[in-house]
């Protein structure tokens, strides 16, 4: 076993220890924030897989999260409450209550199917249109959730979802997502994906099936987005259309951009900052006495800070905090490089929209 592998295993063990300690010791408020943090990391890493590594700047990630979240929630929803709260479904579905894992996976698959339906026409085109088409998907999903009251409880929100997600589930999927994305990026497929991002024509000339590569990459990202949505519903015990609104689009993009497009490490960093920071801003939003200073209620302050971060990063450091660099044990401990070429050292993420 190489030194880096053993370090990774030790890190995983420490991570598991931390999850165990948190579950045992922390109060529900902090557990919820940590859970949200994990979910945000899953969502951001998967978004970055499409946008940063694949050059497919998608604004539809909240839509995929909503599809995965609502699907999983409906599948695990207690049968006793189903027919009174969401009576629109056929009888067999009303009688059905699934365990958590298959429900989550089916949620991910539903999100992937939506990604194929939207991606198939749009991804064949050169860039540009995907952002608007996927933002349109977010609008469509939002409108559908609000209006399909018998299926989703509309704007009221689907409450009473069993609290099945804990830090173990979220931590597990977090590790899985990072592992899968990392392995994909450094696989033959990932090289093809980055080649398409960097030079469409050259990739095509090298025998890459451009449309198929992009569609598969987009679908995988949507799958993990759907998983993140499923975890979210079963952590908060409620899903509302507001959780997947434009603000969610902006926040997700801010997490990815702040960390750096094309860096898994950056996505984790961005998600951590953008999850923790609002916890300090929200008290200011309500107004009142903060640290002895009297301030009025500042509605929308969180969004303003998010917006300033988006604009500021673009003006000052368009590559984000991490650029396209990744964390590695070798650079951390100054270990000699192995013979294998470091494939994570590609240039800055150039994305055409």
């Amino acid at each position, binding site marked *: 076993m190489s030194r880096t592998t053993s370090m990774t295993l030790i890190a995983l063990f420490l991570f598991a220890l931390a999850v165990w300690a948190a579950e045992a010791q922390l109060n529900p408020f902090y557990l919820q924030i940590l859970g949200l943090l994990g979910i945000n990391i899953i969502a951001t890493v998967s978004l970055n897989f499409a946008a940063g590594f694949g050059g497919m*700047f998608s*604004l539809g990630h909240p839509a995929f999260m909503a599809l995965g979240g609502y699907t999983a929630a409906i599948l695990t929803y207690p049968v006793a409450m189903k027919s009174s709260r969401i009576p629109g479904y056929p009888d067999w579905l009303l009688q059905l209550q699934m365990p958590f894992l298959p429900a989550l996976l089916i949620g991910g698959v539903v999100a992937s199917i939506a990604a194929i339906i*939207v991606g198939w*026409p*749009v991804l064949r*085109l*050169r*860039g*540009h*249109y995907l*952002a*608007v*088409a996927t*933002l*349109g*998907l977010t*609008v*469509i999903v939002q*409108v*559908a959730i609000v*209006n399909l009251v018998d299926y989703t409880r509309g704007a009221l929100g689907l409450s009473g979802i069993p609290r099945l997600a804990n830090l173990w589930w979220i931590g597990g999927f977090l590790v899985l997502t990072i592992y899968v994305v990392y392995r994909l990026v450094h696989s033959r497929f990932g090289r093809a994906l980055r080649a398409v991002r960097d030079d*469409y*024509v050259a990739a095509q000339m090298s025998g890459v099936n451009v449309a198929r590569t992009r569609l598969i990459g987009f679908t995988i990202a949507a799958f993990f987005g759907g998983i993140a949505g499923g975890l979210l519903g079963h952590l908060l015990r409620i899903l509302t259309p507001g959780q997947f609104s*434009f*603000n969610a*689009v*902006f926040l997700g*993009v*801010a997490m990815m*951009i702040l960390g750096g*497009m094309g860096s898994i490490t950056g996505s984790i960093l961005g998600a951590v900052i953008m999850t923790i920071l609002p916890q300090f801003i929200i008290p200011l939003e309500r107004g009142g006495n903060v640290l002895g200073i009297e301030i009025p209620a*500042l*509605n*929308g*302050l969180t*969004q*303003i800070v*998010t*917006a*300033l*971060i*988006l*604009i500021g990063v*673009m*003006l000052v450091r*368009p590559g984000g905090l991490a650029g396209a660099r990744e964390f590695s044990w070798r650079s951390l401990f100054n270990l000699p490089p192995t013979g294998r070429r470091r494939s994570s050292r590609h240039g800055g993420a*150039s*994305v*055409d*929209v």
Partner: protein
Amino acid sequence: MTVFSEFLQHMANGLVLGFLYALVGIGLSMVYGILRMINFAHGEILMVGVFLALPVSALGAPAWLVLLSGVAGATLMGLLVQWAIYRPLLKSPEVTLLVASLGVSLLLQNLVLMLTSPQPKRPDPAPFLDQPFRVGEIVLRNVDLAIIVVAIAATLATHLFLKHTRHGRALRALAQDMSAARMMGVNVPFMVMICFLIGSALAGVAGVLIGYKYGHLTPLSGFVPGLKGFVAAVIGGIGSFPGAVVGGLILGLLETFLVGYLPDALAQYRDAYVFLVLILVLLVKPSGLFGKPETVKV
């Protein structure tokens, strides 16, 4: 009401809506044509324009003065954003501009939310604009008529500017080939500014007209018109001026007819239809009605 006159009524409503989309779409299309940038903040410029016009309206100014102040407000805001944020990014990759415009959109929405109360607002009612206007069996309000007249005038003025002035020619050259235009002596940063100026002014026109027509303004009021304006521009062929106008009219008619003839239960999904149309257009004819097929940059 006969079936035919109902059809005519929907048609009239659709045209009014379509002219509003066209006004928004022109600015988006022009900016995209030159910078290859999807300006997500365009709708917010519209919203800021009409919010700046509200105090003028509260003073009891006549509607035309409110319209002018809305145009002035939107134009100033558009130029400010362009100067402070987009101009330094002019040479950056397209995605940088797109993310920056997302940030501007979020910033303007929430700044307006913070500075005003969350209750929806409306311009002081103009009794003349609210009076009904009848042609045969079709009933419109004077404000609808005003929308059509003002939109045609503004579109025509933009058309004449683009076709018959030096600066208009420079703008068209820029859209065709930026580096060639630069070598021919076109002052690129200045013309980009002009482009944003025209787009923002037209958005301001649309904003005030929307305010008078619907009378329900919130800091989020600009977002959906902005997105639909983009869909209109894509239908017509993005980058094309007549395309944006025709695309806007088609989108307005389509939306109105769908909402008018579908059963009530399905009519609530009107915003969703617009994006289904977008996806269909991209599937069938991505370059739109008047657009040139996108050339691949090697």
